[in-house]
């Protein structure tokens, strides 16, 4: 055990030293910002579950059934999340970590290295699920007025819950790593996890949970849930935990302990089995992981026949950088699930407009449609800003240690940044315009609102993309192992704040004039010369702001990136 603890020391020491290094102010700001977001999310989960459970309690006969069904579904969801997150973490920890060469050269038994790595992986994959499951259990405890037995049972059950998920995932990883190199597996698992998550999101949205608040539909749902009152399979770990918590909620300590003990005995047996199997297969998988992984899905051919000729019109150096951008972006398999996710979110975004019950509103329909269209403009540009924070802002940092190639090449930094700008501008402009036109068609807005939305988005997309490139260049992080995380740096926070400011300014500038024009059309009244002047100034200010945002942010990025060289 002593050696296992020694193997965990670099992690503990690195964590401790992380607080005493330079850039602490920036880190503190980051921790506070994300701490607030995390806390808001935690409170949101609690409030949601508390509200739903209180609502269920108000419905006689069905209340408990619904509450337990919800708990069971939540446990299954948490378990699935834990399984997938553990697969990715254990794969990295056991086969792909950069310190494995160092560790395996040491005189420590492989089983101990495996145990230390598995423990780290179990911890890394579980902590977030554990933290965000607490408000759920807390809301049950409060609504059901549970005693200390329940809270003890939650802790007693959560530990084996995570251990079981982590052991099962590690067993899967051990089995598959014996067949394929681990480097290739990571890409496959990431894509699978992404697809599964997207399917879950789409399935949840298509269930139209908003119907639960419609009393007419609710009785049908209740009947449906009542028919689902059958217990879960006794072979599933989630069923044991569910039974234990259910017993604890009703105050039956012995039954809670019995079902919890089932989880514990299974988790310990599973850990023992995993350790045994690791002794047989781990080193073989590790040796296989050190072989070179192959290329996927013939992407090289696709690029040669696809993007290559499309970019032929560009001059040599520009084409070289542009082709490099396309190739590195598409060959990074971690980007794919995120691209799928974006497409899924776009589909859900449009679906929301499709099912929006505008006709049932008490507000006049034409008026509401156009208000929504205006809000839609702000919302879609905010979605664009979030996407840019993930993809555009880290674009310069993505060069990583290879940035010396750009610096030593005869391409000016200005041109390099412009190539990056256009690389992201074109797809993002198409995406945002598609989003705004499609949602306006679904809302059936007036031609004026349609025209205004299309033109405004056309002006705002370049500004938001340029700010992403410019600020990304002003706050680059070429040493980061994962440049996508630079979106969470101080520069990333400044970027999101400035984007919100720009979106807010444009919306505020256009809201008044758009309302005046719209209401004049609705009432058939005229617009005074003074109002025309105000409208002209406000509308003219929008392109001016957007153009200035493009020029200043690109220049700032260029200046900062160039001055870093001196």
């Amino acid at each position: 055990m002593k050696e296992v603890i020694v193997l965990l020391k670099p992690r503990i020491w690195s964590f401790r030293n992380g607080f005493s290094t330079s850039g602490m102010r920036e880190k503190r700001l980051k921790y506070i910002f994300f701490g607030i977001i995390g806390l808001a999310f935690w409170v949101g989960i609690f409030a949601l579950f508390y509200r739903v459970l209180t609502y269920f309690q108000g419905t006689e006969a069905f209340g408990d059934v619904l509450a337990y069904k919800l708990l069971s579904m939540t446990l299954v969801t948490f378990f699935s999340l834990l399984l997938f997150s553990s697969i990715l973490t254990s794969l990295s920890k056991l086969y792909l970590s950069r310190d494995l060469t160092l560790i395996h050269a040491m005189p420590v038994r492989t089983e101990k290295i495996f145990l230390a790595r598995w423990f780290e992986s179990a911890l890394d994959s579980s902590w977030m699920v554990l933290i965000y499951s607490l408000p759920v259990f807390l809301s049950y405890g409060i609504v059901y007025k549970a005693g200390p037995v329940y809270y003890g049972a939650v802790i007693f059950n959560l530990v084996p819950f995570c251990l079981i998920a982590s052991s099962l995932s590690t067993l899967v990883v051990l089995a598959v790593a014996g067949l394929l190199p681990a480097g290739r597996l990571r890409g496959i698992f990431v894509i699978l996890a992404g697809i599964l998550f997207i399917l879950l999101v789409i399935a949840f949205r298509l269930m139209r949970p908003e119907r639960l608040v419609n009393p007419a539909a609710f009785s049908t749902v209740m009947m449906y849930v009542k028919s689902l009152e059958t217990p879960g399979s006794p072979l599933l770990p989630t069923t044991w935990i569910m039974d234990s918590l259910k017993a604890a909620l009703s105050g039956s300590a012995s039954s809670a302990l019995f079902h919890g003990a089932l989880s514990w005995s299974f988790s310990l047996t599973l850990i023992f089995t995993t350790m045994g199997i690791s002794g047989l297969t781990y080193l073989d998988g590790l040796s296989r992981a050190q072989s070179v992984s192959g290329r996927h899905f013939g992407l090289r051919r696709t690029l040669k026949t696809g993007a290559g000729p499309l970019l032929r019109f560009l001059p040599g150096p520009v084409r070289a950088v542009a082709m490099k951008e396309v190739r590195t972006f598409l060959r990074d398999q971690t980007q794919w699930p995120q691209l799928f996710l974006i497409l899924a979110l776009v589909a859900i975004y449009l679906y929301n407009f499709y099912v929006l019950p505008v006709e049932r509103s008490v507000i006049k329909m034409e008026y509401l449609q156009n208000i929504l269209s205006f809000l839609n403009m702000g919302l879609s540009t905010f979605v664009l800003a979030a996407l840019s924070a993930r993809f555009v802002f880290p674009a310069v940092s993505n060069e990583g240690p290879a940035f010396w190639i750009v610096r030593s090449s005869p391409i000016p930094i200005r041109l390099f940044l412009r190539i990056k700008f256009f690389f992201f501008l074109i797809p993002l402009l198409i995406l945002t315009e598609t989003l705004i036109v499609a949602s306006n068609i679904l809302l059936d807005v007036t031609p004026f609102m349609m025209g205004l939305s299309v033109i405004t988005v056309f002006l705002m997309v370049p500004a938001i993309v340029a700010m992403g490139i410019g600020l990304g260049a002003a706050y680059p992080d070429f040493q980061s192992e994962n440049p996508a995380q630079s979106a969470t740096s101080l520069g990333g926070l400044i970027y999101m704040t400035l984007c919100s400011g720009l979106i807010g300014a444009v919306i505020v500038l256009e809201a008044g004039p758009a309302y005046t024009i719209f209401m004049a059309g609705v009432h058939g009244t005229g617009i005074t010369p003074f109002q025309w002047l105000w409208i002209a100034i406000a509308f003219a200010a929008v392109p001016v702001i957007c153009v200035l945002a493009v020029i200043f942010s690109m220049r700032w990025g260029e200046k900062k990136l160039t001055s870093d060289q001196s």
Partner: protein
Amino acid sequence: MIELKNLTKRYGNVLAVNGLDLSVSAGEIFGFIGPNGAGKTTTIRMMGGILRPTAGTVLIDGIDMSRDPETAKRRIGFIPDRPFLYEKLTGMEFMRFTADLFGMGDGLFREKAESILKMFSLHDWADELIEAYSHGMKQRLVISAALLHDPRIIIVDEPMVGLDPAGIRMIKGLFRRLADGGTTIFMSTHTLEVAEDVCDRIGIIHLGSLIATGTMADLKRMASSEEANLEEVFLRLTEEESFGA
């Protein structure tokens, strides 16, 4: 001290190391040279117990690496070509971590670590985070950590990468002194002058096979060129093999 018997490594259809037979005695500095992709690093990783051979045996001081890896590794100071260091640890913490894994006691550690860090001019940097170290300093720290437990065998992949001329001279002198004291050194390198200067014997690996082994004089004889330096001998032997293949 080191014995490789029919050592073979296959990655899928690629034969990286092909039935290597080699022995290195106590107190000998053995240079392992070869073109890029010849199988040097794969061989060294198998010797270090990081990679499992497809076939064959690695004996370290008579101990079979596959049967008793912990005891075998305890005798080795392993220095990889692209060493990983925990950037958020200080130099001294990294030394402590290594010492703990080799089971060194507290009393012995501090004194030993300080003297080695002094020898490598890292003493003043011992409490700084590794992320602040230059490339050469990181390389010196890795070598320091590998020497901490007084290994009887040193296996080193490209030891001179990132070192300045003074550093290179220091390492060359250190290796010679260690070998004179009975330590066996197995060194892979692309720096042929270093191999020529320091090594007692040299092995040339090409396309996974050992094509020549011997002293400088033996290799010159094999290349039928008594006046040539190691570079010319190396190029002649590897070219002959390539054309013969």
